[in-house]
């Protein structure tokens, strides 16, 4: 997978995450019940449980902020430090998602489709972001001075 495709894939996924978290944040502040496909009130139980807030802040809002930061780091210049920021943010989001899923499954014993969707998104994004960071910009055309210093020649060139 080329660096461009990898970055684009992560960007699309984070946009989906922003959409998901925006909906959950909106219904939280608008006081609307979530539209749940299956399981009836399970979603609502999760969304209104005591675990839907962390130190008084709705977890939906925390998720929205997290996804926006991830998206921002993906739109930043293609530099190692930003790839590190993306990976760390996604790692943090994944960890938080693990905690929330644990609460759903073992404490509330209810599943919220939106939370599961977010958990799946972050689970897919995590290995991609780690791979992107760990491999450097090896598969990336040297588009900047920094990239040129770090890496030899653009893809497809001969020496």
């Amino acid at each position, binding site marked *: 997978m080329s660096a461009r495709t990898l970055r684009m894939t992560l960007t699309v996924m984070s946009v989906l995450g922003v959409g998901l978290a925006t909906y959950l944040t909106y219904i939280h502040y608008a006081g609307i019940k979530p539209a749940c496909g299956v399981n009836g009130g399970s979603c609502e139980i999760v969304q209104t*449980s005591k675990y839907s807030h962390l130190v008084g802040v709705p977890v939906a809002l925390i998720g929205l902020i997290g996804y926006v930061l991830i998206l921002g780091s993906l739109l930043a210049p293609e530099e190692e430090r930003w790839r590190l920021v993306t*990976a760390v943010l996604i790692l943090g989001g994944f960890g938080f998602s693990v*905690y929330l899923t644990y609460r759903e499954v073992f404490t509330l014993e209810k599943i919220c489709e939106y939370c599961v969707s977010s958990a799946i998104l972050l689970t897919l994004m995590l290995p991609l972001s780690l791979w992107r960071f760990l491999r450097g910009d090896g598969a990336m055309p040297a588009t900047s001075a920094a990239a040129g210093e*770090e890496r030899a020649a653009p893809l497809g060139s001969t020496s």
Partner: protein
Amino acid sequence: MPVSKVQDEGDLTRKQRREQARAERKAAEEAAAAGDARRRRLTQLGGALVVVVVAIVVILIATGGGGSKPSTGGVGNGKHEKSKTVKEAVATVEREIGGVAQNGNVLGSPAAPVTIAYFGDLECPICQEFTVGAEGSEGALPQLIQKWVRAGKVKIEYRSLSTATGNAERGGSEPEGTFNRQQSAALAAGKQNKGWYYIELFYHLQGKEDSGYVTEKYIQELAEATPGLNLSTWQAERNNQAWQAQLSTDAQEANNNGFTGTPSFLIGKTGGAMKKYEYSSLTDPSGFNEAIEKALKA
């Protein structure tokens, strides 16, 4: 001519060897640099991972640790804890609704100008949030009772809607008919105008949803704890077919209003059209207050 060619080839070979050696050196340096970079990146990620794990553990501990849902007591608990919890719950319920008129499933004066229909499932934890409270916040219900019901302006009808109880017929783990048994036990207490004591006690002592704690023994013990309830009369009333009819009516009305979750609410002028009320909070009563004020002016 042949000698010169051999010299050229010898020079070329030496040149090629030098280039090859240079290339190998460069490759080795690049490999070393790449290895260093990878190690540095792995160290950075390792550090981030440690921070994330520590943060999750802190959050887990701060939000109540362990895996199972925090117990809210339950009549079936150990003897010492049981007597303490039930005693406290009865005292709280007495404080909240003691002295307020009760009639069947209705709390409040029959002449109250506004009626709230509260659709609930006695095992529903969100109903508990409304009825009792959550995270140190008092539920909206006791505040509404204090402000409106005690003032004779609002009466609250408790209606049944099966959502949280894990009856076997709904794919849950509890015995078939659990929902009907627990809800009709409350309605039977209502025959003695103690129904709201039973309902409130159920929520205050609520156990883990769909865990099978609502046994016959549990239902009986709640009745024993219900202030002023004549147990033999209550027991006889439990078999009244009217309760099944009431549960069916409640379920039908919930269905007509599109209610799929509990708690759900209808608010309106007594005897008039009731409107669905979509709550924004179950602990802050301000939304309910606005809806009541609107119904009072209607």
